[in-house]
């Protein structure tokens, strides 16, 4: 994005869809598992944790983006940790002052937002390379995606584990399955939700594979997790399942690095597109190429979109 250029509404929508759905930090990127598993014993806890992390994410993305030309590459990790932990302390003190009950039930997971991979990942992958406005929105939507995922898990666990929603009994005659509010239930619930997400994406990618093979060979601008690259469809590739869940494949050796430097191809694609736009504006020769990529990318990524509501109901 060029300096002074207006932040387009279309980019905002693309970022929103990416943060909330197609690149959801929990269900797709599989980051930040500790708070996800620990704080979702009820809907309120999940919501509180999510909003606290969102607040930190927006503030840290803002500041890191502002300082991105000041912070040198070598000391960036220490700088990010300091910035993030400063905001976490602020959020912790605010919650202690105004939401003491919630603060008590979330326990140590408020200070532990400092080591949340999602916040660090967005700082590294997005805020340190992009202007302020996109960075703030990136933090906001990623945070809201995190919050939404926590709320879904919290809702399911509270409903099945206690038969209540927000402390009110909603299932008369239901005898609660206490396992769902125990630690084991956290693993089970998240496991089944992610299986559902993978099922959904498998179905989509199978459908898209045959539809798209004929006309588009190389697509940029959509997340690698959704991109269909292989020309020769072959069932045997599903044995390692790498094509559908690139960042999630727990057997890959680089898996743990992903927690620090998420394999964020979508961000890379954005940056590539902006770089091309800038090049196009300086030298008009490349303009056709830049426009071509955009018009290619947008309709394809729109077909990839799906609504959260449809997914939850299904």
């Amino acid at each position, binding site marked *: 994005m060029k300096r002074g250029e207006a932040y387009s509404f279309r980019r905002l929508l693309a970022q929103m869809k990416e943060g909330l759905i197609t690149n959801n930090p929990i269900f797709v990127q599989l980051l930040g598992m500790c708070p996800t598993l620990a704080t979702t014993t009820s809907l309120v806890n999940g919501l509180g944790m999510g909003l606290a992390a969102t607040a930190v994410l927006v503030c840290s993305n803002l500041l890191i983006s502002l300082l991105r030309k000041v912070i040198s590459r070598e000391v960036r990790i220490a700088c990010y*940790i300091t910035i993030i932990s400063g905001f*976490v302390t602020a959020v912790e003190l605010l919650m202690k002052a105004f939401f003491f009950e919630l603060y008590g039930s979330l326990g140590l997971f408020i200070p532990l937002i400092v080591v949340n991979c999602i916040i660090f990942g967005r700082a590294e992958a997005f805020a340190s390379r992009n202007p302020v406005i996109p960075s703030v929105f990136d933090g906001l939507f990623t945070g809201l995606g995190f919050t939404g995922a926590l709320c879904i898990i919290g809702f399911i666990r509270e409903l099945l584990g206690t038969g209540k929603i927000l402390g009110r009994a909603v299932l008369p005659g239901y005898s609660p399955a206490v396992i769902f509010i125990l630690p084991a239930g956290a*693993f*089970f619930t998240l496991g089944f939700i992610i299986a559902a997400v*993978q099922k959904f994406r498998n179905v989509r990618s199978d459908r898209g594979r045959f539809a798209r093979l004929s006309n588009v060979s190389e697509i940029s601008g959509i997340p690698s997790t959704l991109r269909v690259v292989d020309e020769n469809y072959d069932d045997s590739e599903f044995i390692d399942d790498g094509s559908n869940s690139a960042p999630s494949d727990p057997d890959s050796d680089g898996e743990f690095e992903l927690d620090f430097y998420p394999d964020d191809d979508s961000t890379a694609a954005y940056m590539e597109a902006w770089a091309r736009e800038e090049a196009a504006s300086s030298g008009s020769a490349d303009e056709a190429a830049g426009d071509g990529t955009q018009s290619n990318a947008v309709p394809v990524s729109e077909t990839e979109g799906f609504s959260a509501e449809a997914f939850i109901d299904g």
Partner: protein
Amino acid sequence: MTFAPITVRGLFLLMLGAVLTENFIFSKFYGCCPFLGVSDKPDKALGMGMAVTFVMTVSGAVTWAVYYYVLVPLGLTYLRTVAFILVISVLVQFIEMFLRRFVPALYSSLGIYLPLITTNCAVLGAALVNIQSGYGFVPSVCYGFAAGIGFTLAMVLFAGVRAKMEFADPPRAFRGFPLTLIAAGLLAMIFSGFSGISFG
């Protein structure tokens, strides 16, 4: 600063609790990222677990000292999160340099895991638990060590489970991460059985 004196029996129960009933992974969920990420091979799991145990023990001592000798006298206890994470990241760097220089054998087995530990919430979690529970110096160090042992136990057990899972043929949607989570849930059920033990 005065701390309640702790008996050997109390210390033992504290450590046993930290390993089994209050297991960092299965009851508190501290350190789930490496638990789910690095637990695919038993030797890797053991290496990571040992590295975490080592850092947790040392950081338990150092953060305790920082808190009671620096932050409390200066009245800056509310900055403990900032201070601890910085201390831990510096400490991990030092440990890495020290091991590379003086204990190359240990470095070659733990070295690659050390940089990952800075942002492991188990280490920061243990440091914060020590302060929150008001443990003295010895219990803090012992608690860090025992929690690390509990972490290692969980990692190695789970790596064994996952090694068996390689031969399973689950439905396509469950392959990879979901199955890992469900296996972890089953192990968590086993560990929740320990909470029935009461240490009278």
